[in-house]
């Protein structure tokens, strides 16, 4: 762009100077002709007339001198001191006593008339240079304004783009955190971004549909298997109540009953998670006092910890109220505490703390903890950290915890207790700043 502007300037400026030079030369030719026809007197008259006709804005310069450069006719007080170049052109300054009094640059052509007289015809270059300056000014301002406008336009454009990208990012994050119902907002302008957004939304619809399908199928399986399983368990129970069996057979029936109970509780947990995730239970919400709830959970689990020689501590700093389902909140904290007790070695300390300021409940144990890379996975259904599955449990406990937390818009975080694990439940509306 600069090149283009330079070219514009150069071509107009050069064109204008050429034009000036051409005018001067034409004038000289005219004067020369007059001299040839009318002699010196005619030339002088013509010059005088021209000078007389000259308007204040005109800028012609004439000077006719004798051989010794003594002025005869003209509007110059003396022959300029600068020497003419090969073609007779010379540049000089003249103080014409204008209002601004600044010396003007002038350009003129000098030549010898009949070896006797020197004639100088020129132009005051002030106007021309003014014009050139104006062109430069215009061009420079043009550049500046163009640049500023381009910059502002660019910022506005990229802001818009950034905003759209940001909204896509935000939505994707929400979706990744589990809220599959979220969609990217569209503006209806049908531009590229809008089409991208609606394509992504269509894709999300399909994913949601598939997930829904998978969930429904697994829930249906759980539900459909639960009934025959319950019947099986009942038959086992009646079998057990028939007194005709010897003790060895009774033991087998008991073991079978135990297995059936385990299966039933797994199905129950699955169905329960599904129900919680479908958010159908919000109607049972009420204001719950977490301090009372924690006291109840800890009281329920305290004998278990004592049996294992563990120290179970409860500390409440302030109080916390939360809108929620009392039974589900109890289940959630009980599951966390159950894990803490299960994994903490004898003589270990398990601490349950409530902090009003931080708006959170923490359950910290001294077990083996959960390695960083597995911390997201432990909330998945049937995920077991212990791949040998030698410890008891269905692998659904933390999935249930997560489902309950999500239903109550609580954030759940796993931290290092060095050694052990800290499960932090942040209540909705509490800030994320919390001293570890």
């Amino acid at each position, binding site marked *: 762009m600069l090149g283009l502007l330079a070219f514009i300037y150069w071509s107009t400026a050069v064109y204008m100077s050429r034009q000036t030079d051409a005018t001067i030369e034409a004038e000289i030719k005219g004067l020369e002709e007059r001299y040839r026809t009318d002699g010196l007197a005619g030339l002088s008259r013509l010059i005088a007339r021209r000078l007389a006709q000259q308007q204040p804005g005109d800028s012609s310069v004439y000077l006719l001198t004798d051989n010794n450069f003594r002025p005869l006719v003209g509007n110059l007080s003396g022959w300029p001191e600068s020497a003419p170049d090969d073609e007779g052109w010379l540049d000089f300054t003249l103080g014409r006593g204008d209002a601004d009094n600044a010396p003007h640059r002038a350009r003129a052509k000098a030549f010898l008339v009949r070896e006797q007289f020197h004639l100088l015809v020129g132009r005051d270059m002030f106007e021309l240079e003014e014009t050139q300056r104006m062109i430069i000014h215009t061009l420079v301002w043009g550049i500046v304004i163009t640049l500023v406008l381009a910059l502002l336009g660019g910022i506005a454009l990229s802001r818009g783009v950034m905003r759209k990208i940001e909204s896509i990012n935000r939505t994707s994050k929400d979706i990744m955190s589990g809220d599959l119902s979220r969609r990217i907002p569209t503006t209806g302008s049908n531009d590229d971004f809008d089409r991208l957004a609606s394509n992504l939304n269509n894709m999300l619809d399909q994913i949601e549909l598939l997930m829904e399908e998978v969930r429904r199928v697994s829930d249906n399986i759980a539900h459909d298997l639960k009934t025959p399983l319950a019947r099986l368990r009942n038959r086992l129970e009646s079998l057990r109540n028939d007194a005709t069996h010897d003790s060895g057979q009774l033991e087998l029936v008991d073991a079978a009953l135990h297995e059936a109970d385990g299966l039933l509780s797994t199905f129950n947990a699955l169905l329960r998670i599904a*129900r919680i995730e479908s958010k159908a239970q919000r109607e049972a919400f009420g204001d719950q006092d977490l301090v009372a709830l924690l006291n109840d959970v800890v009281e329920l689990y305290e004998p278990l910890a004592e049996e294992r020689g563990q120290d179970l501590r409860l500390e409440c700093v302030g109080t916390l109220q939360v809108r929620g389902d009392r039974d589900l909140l109890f289940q959630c904290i009980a599951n966390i505490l159950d894990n803490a007790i299960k994994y903490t070695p004898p003589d270990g300390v398990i601490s349950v703390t409530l902090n009003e300021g931080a708006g959170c409940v923490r359950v910290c144990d001294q077990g083996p903890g959960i390695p960083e890379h597995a911390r997201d996975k432990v909330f998945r259904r049937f995920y077991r950290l212990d791949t040998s599955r030698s410890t008891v449990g269905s692998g659904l406990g933390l999935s249930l915890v997560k489902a309950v937390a999500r239903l109550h818009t609580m954030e759940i975080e796993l931290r290092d207790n060095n050694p052990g694990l800290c499960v932090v439940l942040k209540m909705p509306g509490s800030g994320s700043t919390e001293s570890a």
Partner: protein
Amino acid sequence: MRILIIEDDQETASYIIKGLRESGHVVDHAAVGKTGLLMAGTESYDALIVDRMLPEMNGLSIVKALRGAGNHTPVLFLSALGEVDDRVSGLRAGGDDYLVKPFAFSELLARLEALDRRKTSESTVTVLRVGDLEMDLLRRTVTRGGKPINLQPREFRLLEYLLRHSGQVVTRTMLLEKVWDYHFDPQTNIIDVHISRLRSKIDKEFDTPLLHTVRGAGYIVRESG
């Protein structure tokens, strides 16, 4: 006990009827809501087992109609829905207990018998007694063979519930619901730990145990094993 079952699912109904008759109860059955309401209103029963989802008239309306007419026969709801708010609405409509299908028969039986006991021995008694174990509800003291037994508040409530239902099987879920007042599924048999703690206080130093485990069902307090 004389029990009326209002249940449209034939298989569930016959299974319950068979089990209850084997346990020595007299059982009537209605498969349709209106018939059930008519029977419950005209005959005298010790307890009603009512399915929530019934043709013609649902279980909630039946119980509301009965309660409106001044009939206070204990009602146990059966439901395939099992949502917490369903339980709440069922109890609000006048139901006394709630069981989600599918259920273990022992659970149903234990709950039914607990309902029957509720009717006869509500809070009028001040002393509960099984064998040489005595609980004074006013002074909040427990003695066995004249020796005082020191119980924590929750242990006291646990023992009180067991004593109020002495001679009946009480399930773990019932204990969680009635003593701890929470509906939830413990991952561990946490109730067993509380029971063994209680047992060590009331049974350990005595010759005859009173608190027995019923395998596959729950616990029972009675004089002889």
